[in-house]
């Protein structure tokens, strides 16, 4: 792998916010907002895969969609291949669409039920290329082969496929225009393990061959470990930890990351029954009303007094290993984090 200085940032996201308004009352007046993505910054290097993991509802899909400007973002900048698209109007954006694509979480909802598979896959080709019909069909067949769909099914409609087969249609379509950057939103969640493996191997092959860059959203931590070069962990609209893959899995720093890793079920019943889990208790906060201080403070097993008032800043603990947690923001806690945290907790309890 290339070292950081030699690597080019293909995607740069700075202070991205995506807030959805909440309307209520008879007059439907604006009474608040859902802070689905709340001040996120990260880069994706050319040719790498950045994994994005986190709790359901924490804002992963919103983040992926905002980065591709499927929404008009609330605040922040998004630069792709040197071009600032964060504030670009949709008309100008259209010209840049082929270079960035998305594979959606809900395959059913994103496939037009009235179109055959061949038409669905060739739709982007119609819109953005002037290939002949023969070439288009050849490309469609090539793409169907690539994602493991039988060519004989080209004239079928989406409802004639199983859930997993439908997801592969979405992937084939996303690949049609040879994009540079693909946001994969839970692309394999609906597939069986062998086909998951096929798709992941395929994504990796395409990456090697075409230099593709992925933002890979998933809650499957074992797959993310396989495919990602670096991993970002989100919690309630914020990135709480970002690290190279091996570092994240071997030495997770943020208590939320620890809890997440400990909850992965093991495919072996004898191990599974013995496993030690960090079970998260406490209130699950809502993104329309995040808690004061650290967003994770209502459920954190290592919570301290400061966490309930001050939002932790992000610190770099090792090269490329970032986390936003008070266990590491004070220099004293960096050397003996656990004892300090425990003591802080003890004094908390005494204080109450």
């Amino acid at each position, binding site marked *: 792998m290339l070292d950081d200085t030699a690597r080019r940032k293909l995607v740069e996201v700075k202070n991205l916010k995506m807030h*959805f308004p909440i309307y209520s009352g008879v007059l439907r007046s604006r009474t608040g907002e859902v802070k689905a993505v709340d001040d996120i910054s990260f880069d994706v290097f050319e040719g790498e895969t950045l994994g994005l993991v*986190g709790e359901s509802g924490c804002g992963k899909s919103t983040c992926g969609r905002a980065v591709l400007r499927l929404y008009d973002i609330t605040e922040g900048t998004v630069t792709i291949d040197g071009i600032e698209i964060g504030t670009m109007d949709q008309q100008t954006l259209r010209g840049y669409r082929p270079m960035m694509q998305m594979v959606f979480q809900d395959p*059913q*909802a994103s496939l037009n039920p009235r179109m055959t598979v061949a038409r669905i896959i060739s739709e982007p080709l119609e819109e953005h290329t002037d290939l002949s019909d023969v070439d288009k069909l050849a490309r469609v067949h090539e793409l169907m082969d690539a994602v493991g769909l039988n060519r004989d099914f080209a004239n079928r409609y989406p409802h004639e496929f199983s859930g997993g087969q439908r997801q592969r249609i979405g992937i084939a379509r996303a690949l049609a225009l040879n994009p540079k950057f693909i946001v994969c939103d839970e692309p394999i969640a*609906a597939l069986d393990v062998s086909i998951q*493996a096929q798709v992941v191997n395929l994504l990796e092959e395409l990456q090697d061959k075409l230099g593709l860059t992925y933002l890979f959203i998933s809650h499957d931590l074992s797959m993310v470990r396989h495919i990602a070069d670096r991993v970002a962990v989100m919690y309630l609209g914020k990135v709480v930890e970002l690290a190279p893959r091996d570092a994240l899995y071997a030495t997770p720093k943020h208590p939320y990351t620890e*809890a997440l890793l400990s909850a992965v079920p093991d495919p072996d019943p004898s191990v599974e029954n013995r496993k030690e889990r960090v079970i998260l208790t406490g209130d*699950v906060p809502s993104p*329309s*009303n995040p808690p004061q201080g650290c967003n994770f403070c209502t459920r954190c097993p290592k919570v301290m007094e400061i966490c309930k008032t001050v939002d932790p800043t992000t610190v770099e603990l090792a090269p490329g290993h970032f986390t936003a947690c008070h266990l590491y923001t004070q220099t004293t806690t960096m050397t003996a984090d656990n004892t300090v945290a425990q003591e802080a907790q003890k004094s908390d309890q005494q204080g109450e």
Partner: protein
Amino acid sequence: MPDGGVPVLDVKDLKTVFLTRSGEVHAVNSVSFDLKPGELLGVVGESGSGKSVTMMSLIGLLPTPPAEIRGGSVVFEGEDLLKIGEDRLRKLRGSRIGFVFQDPMTSLNPVFTVGFQICEPLRKHMGLSKSEARTRAVELLELVGIPDARRRLRDYPHQFSGGMRQRVMIAIALACDPDVLIADEPTTALDVTIQAQILELMKELREKLGMAVIWITHDLGVIAGIADRVMVMYGGQVVEQAPVRELFANPQHPYTRALLQTVPSVSGERSEKLRVIEGQPPILVDAPSACPFRARCGHAFARCDRENPARVTVGPGHDAACFWNPATEGPRDAG
């Protein structure tokens, strides 16, 4: 672990085909299984192997045409669900048999609020008043871990994240305390911590209410953690069935064996390339007259091309549909 006892659900020789312009698709071929009260039956198998179609056939959820149920019986509390008629079936579906669909966006109605969709069955089947139904709806949403539940009743499905929609589906399926819950990939969009909560909830409901569960999933880790028994499907058929530990420790069918080897893990060695089961899934245009797995099987021999193996008992509560015996590495004795 519950065993013995009269099954709540008994499925025999179920056959479902789709009539398409390009001919018939034999999606479900002679599938038989049963489900005991309080039991959790895990269903795994290749994408397209007929898991969803099997379960939807059971409870009359497939549009006919294009689907056609060609045979079999599905006995639930003495009644054959394939014979009782749409009205009675609809009633059972809303109250006694809960169902979580694989695709939450299509099964939630985009034009009604989430609250309405949870309250509706509560009022219709449980006779709750409007305010009672709302209270219960908030309770249910909290049970599946949706924060700020009361406010969110007013939201429409598109305002929920993928995993939240899935949990709404689970809440709806559980609303009327069903005897049987059929859950089709109910946690694909959930992260592991929330999934763990849902699995814990299942355990509780099974212990407290004796609810029996059919749980379809691709996640063998989940199966290992919650299933009592596992059924493996391939090419529209059940190819193996066993108690969970037995299946993981002693898989018999070559498909099951291959499946168990493809799983990556969060601990242990990280492989450069993931293992896959080579070859294409079968095209189900005819009723099978040979083993559906033979083209991808490393152990196939002449008989596998001529005959579709029947399920034979290979151990206590364990059966497999295969002519090959992994213990002897040779053909299984005819029988």
